[in-house]
């Protein structure tokens, strides 16, 4: 498959799209700010001395509400899309999804334990509560993924097929455990759980942003370095081995990056579906299968897609707010179906 667009042009186009998404995400919201005020508030936040009336309000909205939200959308979208590429590369299947290795269901289980367990303990101190949920979700994702990886290993070899099946089984098991917690939860806890499972960038704050920023930066710097190895893996495992790639190490890194990245994104924003599946798929149509292009392009596209989805989430029902998982699934699922139908001979 040859690229439809030269890599240089593709990067410029996606870069511009991402910038546009960032700008719209800063400039648009239920509170209508004059364009000039948004610009002035941005400049002021960057340290440029700006004079003017009504700046305080604009700076509060842009600086405290929209900027952390934009950064969260940017990093979560990027890392989810990258994890999607990593999984599709690992399973050598364009229909793979970060959920396959159990990271999403593990995170959901962790969140359920935190939410329901927290209410059994008579509610946690408000200082701790948001962090506990994030930490449990992160650890849950990491734990289940580690288990899937362990089950796939035998005699120093990792069988991707066994990992896939173990992922399916552990996802079912984790869902059953979440179901049990759902059954045991009272009405109010149940609602918290439901909303968490739908994901949201609502209420993003700098304090809760930095772990994700750190991990996302690490993953986005690391994965592109392994682009050549991923390309070799496309040919098949033994072929990649003959080309001098340490395939076992590559698999370990891919699983680890996915667990870390998706775990952190889910911990910060709840479950956001379909980005990891659809974005790499979509980008591959334009860029071709070369991971040296696919990885950075997916990063930009994932970040842009999540920001646009968030714009819909915050504007569609304003002043109320739509969970972003609903928006991404509504955008993603029909597109996925379209790909399925079109791909058939």
């Amino acid at each position, binding site marked *: 498959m040859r690229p439809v667009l030269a890599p240089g042009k593709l990067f410029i186009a996606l870069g511009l799209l991402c910038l546009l998404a960032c700008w719209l995400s800063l400039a648009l919201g*239920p509170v209508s700010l004059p364009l000039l005020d948004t610009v002035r508030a941005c400049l002021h936040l960057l340290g440029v001395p700006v004079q003017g009336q009504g700046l305080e309000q604009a700076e509060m909205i842009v600086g405290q509400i929209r900027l952390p939200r934009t950064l969260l959308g940017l990093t979560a979208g990027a890392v989810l899309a990258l994890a999607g590429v990593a999984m599709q590369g690992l399973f050598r299947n364009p229909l793979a999804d970060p959920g396959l290795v159990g990271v999403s269901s593990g995170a959901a289980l962790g969140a359920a334990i935190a939410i329901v367990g927290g209410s059994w303990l008579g509610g946690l101190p408000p200082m701790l509560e948001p962090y506990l949920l994030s930490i449990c979700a992160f650890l849950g994702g990491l734990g289940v993924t580690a288990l899937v990886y362990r089950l796939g290993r035998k005699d120093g070899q990792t069988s991707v097929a066994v990992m896939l099946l173990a992922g399916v089984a552990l996802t079912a098991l984790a869902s059953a455990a979440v179901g049990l917690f759902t059954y045991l939860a009272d009405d109010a806890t149940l609602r918290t759980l439901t909303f968490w499972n739908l994901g949201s960038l609502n*209420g993003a704050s700098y304090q809760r942003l930095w772990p994700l920023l750190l991990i996302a930066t690490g993953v986005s710097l690391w994965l592109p370095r392994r682009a050549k190895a991923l390309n070799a893996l496309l040919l098949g495992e033994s072929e990649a081995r003959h080309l001098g790639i340490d395939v076992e190490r590559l698999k370990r890194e891919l699983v680890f990056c996915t667990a870390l990245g998706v775990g952190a994104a889910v911990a910060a924003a709840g479950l956001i579906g379909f980005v990891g599946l659809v974005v790499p798929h979509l980008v591959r149509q334009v860029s071709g299968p070369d991971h040296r292009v696919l990885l950075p392009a997916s990063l930009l596209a994932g970040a842009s897609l999540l920001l646009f989805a968030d714009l819909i989430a915050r504007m569609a029902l304003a002043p109320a*707010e739509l969970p972003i998982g609903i928006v991404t699934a509504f955008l993603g699922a029909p597109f996925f179906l379209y790909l399925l139908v079109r791909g058939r001979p």
Partner: protein
Amino acid sequence: MRLSAKVIGFTATLLLHPWAMAAEALPQHWASAGGSLTEWVVAMGGESKLVGVDTTSQHPDSVKALKSIGYQRALSSEGILSLTPRPDILIGTEEMGPPPVLEQIRAAGLKVEMFDSKADLPTLQATLLHLGRLLGDEAHAGKLFDDYRQQLASHQEWVKLAEAKQPAPGVILMLGHMGAKPLVAGPDTVAGWLIAQAGGRNLATQPGYKNFSTEVLAALDPQVIVFADRSLSGDAAIAALLKDNPALATTQAAKHKRIVQLDPTLLVGGLGPRLPASLNGLSQAFFPDAKP
């Protein structure tokens, strides 16, 4: 010199407008994220101050025309700030959230007041007096609470008299949606509190709302079934309930047609102003022989 001029100006303003300070301190535009809190604000005459309510605020009908700020647990900071006129205060129960959003709203200069939604009278008293202070009419709030307590007390006396004449019936309260898979209310819920206040004996003993198998329902053999349906009302709701749960037909409640309807919005968010009236209805269904 400039300072003293300011002080004189300020003092003069105070003298000229004795209520200037008080009027400034009271929030004029309210956003409410709690069903019964909204009802109480309206009952205290504060409806004109409401600029936005959440999706649990369904009563009285007129508040449905207000802007919706979404579900109380998934509020949006910018959404609330974008209401016109911009609210000075956001009220809600401890279920209101998520917490980071509340922080952002506070940072934007809004007052965020959280109320306890526990279903008991001291909590209600604190809630009403606080609301009254914020609305600038504490006396009215106090009177509302006294009336409320009075109504509940005289209701209790009536229930005692009725219980002397006939034994308290065994009751289950079911919350359903078009009759299907109803959830049975345990004693720790507001629904359980209602049954006990109305003089019924709650046959369910589990905490919270749970699904019961139809066999268990038949075995419990309630004398009265209270049914709160989220989407149907009237005979249609009862017909749907019996159609979807044929085992109920064998119970005493179904045989003697003692299935009572209850508005499900009464069961959310603490004690609301409509509770005493619905208690009367329930008690009359529980004790048909006693005259109120």
